[in-house]
């Protein structure tokens, strides 16, 4: 009788384990947007710190994760149509997009200069007054810039940022307003040789991990809970700062 009971208990345990495993080993597709140095399409994606941080968290929950590189414009469409489950990293321009509870990091806007014209401290706003500064026309600017008497030249179009950086490089602007200079001012970017950027600290934009509207609520709850625990144990920004 004892042997039969033991066999029953073992079978029960195996059945429960099997269903628990299948419940959490579901596949998950994660869309990635190029956002160096957090997600860098120019190198092996598995080396990108944000990929590593999130992959570790999702894998620990038993998800089979597939990562898909997506162009910025198409990425949100894919998410809203439910063709991907998660998209990152994403500044929240569209309020209807659902996200995990807390931002993964914050981006700080700034100005990029030719190195010989570099202004390191942008709270010295009087130094901006005589400059000609290019700005993408679809961005809201920080008060430090709009309150200055700098001559602002608005650039239209989707590639306004890349054109603005190029025009700064060629000396057409004294500086260019960039929504997230960290994406361009890093040693892996050839522009680093000629341009340097400084930041409007105190004016930041939260960057999120977005989720598809079609993601089942129980899966969302599981991911969101794991995400919060991971952040509490070690924030992504601290993880990033301690990377090799």
């Amino acid at each position, binding site marked *: 009788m004892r042997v039969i009971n033991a066999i029953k208990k073992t079978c029960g345990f195996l059945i429960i384990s099997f269903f628990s495993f299948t419940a959490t080993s579901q596949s998950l597709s994660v869309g990635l947007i190029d956002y160096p140095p957090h997600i860098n399409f120019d190198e092996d994606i598995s080396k990108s710190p944000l990929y590593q941080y999130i992959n570790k968290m999702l894998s620990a929950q038993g998800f089979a994760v597939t990562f898909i590189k997506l162009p910025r414009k198409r990425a949100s469409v894919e998410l809203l149509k439910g063709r991907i489950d998660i998209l990152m990293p994403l500044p929240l321009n569209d309020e209807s997009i659902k996200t995990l509870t807390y931002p993964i990091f*914050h981006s700080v806007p700034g100005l990029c200069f030719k190195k010989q014209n570099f*202004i390191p401290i942008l709270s010295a706003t009087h130094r901006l007054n005589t400059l000609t500064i290019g700005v993408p026309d679809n961005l809201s600017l920080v008060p430090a810039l709009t309150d200055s008497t700098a001559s602002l030249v608005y650039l239209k179009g989707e590639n306004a940022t890349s054109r603005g950086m190029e025009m700064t490089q060629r000396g057409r602007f004294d500086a260019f307003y960039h929504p997230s200079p960290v994406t361009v*001012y890093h040693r892996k970017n050839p522009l680093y040789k000629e341009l340097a950027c400084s930041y409007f600290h*105190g004016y930041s934009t939260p960057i999120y991990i977005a989720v598809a509207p079609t993601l089942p609520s129980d899966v969302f709850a599981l991911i969101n809970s794991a995400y919060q625990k991971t952040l509490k144990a070690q924030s992504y*920004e601290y993880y990033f*700062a301690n990377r090799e």
Partner: protein
Amino acid sequence: MSNQSKLFVLITAYLFMSFQVSADNTKMKGVINDITKIYMSSMTYIFANQPLINQKDVDKSELFGDKFLENVKQTYRAKYSEAFPKEDHFAKKILLQTMVEVMDDNKELLYDNDIGFKGVIPATYAFQISAKLATKGIGLNFKFTRTNSNIRNKLNRPDAWETSVMKKIIATPKIFYDENALLNGKPAIRQFTPLPMSPFCLACHGTPADNPLNANKERSQWTDIDISGFKMENWTVDDFGGGVSISIEKSFLESH
């Protein structure tokens, strides 16, 4: 139960609760004191290491990660002649992590050999700490501030509480602790720790004679614009140096 017994129970409960509240306040005061001193030690380290920060083609690993924290701890021990506080509260842990994050945010600039003066000075570093902590949404607020009329970075302007505290202590600067303050409309404990004006402040805020840019130059060639691009204020060591204002929402302290 007799009336006497009831009275005894009530008095005992009251004394126990008073003791508990007093113990909590002491603990909170201890935490806020520790983080103020850690914050100030890191600013001292940043000031002392301006040559390393602005130097070209050198190893700057001392400014990042665990090495940076160890240097801040060493500075703390030297500055206050006491052991570095135990990391026994979430607020201290968060502050130390934020320091590492801020230094990492400056990494590309610090390693840019084409830029001489990097602009990573105690005031900008302290402001970056404040700005980053604010993004964490945890009810922990740091500010390196001064009286409203003399503030360089508008985002460091004092709020009503800080203004009233500075009015009270400006003549005889001393630490002001308030366990019944508000922050963002929520109950908070707040502390303002005045900073004495020191030679390192005067390099930017003093007279042209204090300006390192004027060193070894004829007086006629002196500038009253400091290295960060601001006009110097002509302050002396006897002027009020502003202070560090730290606020912690009580709900944050209690939940950690």
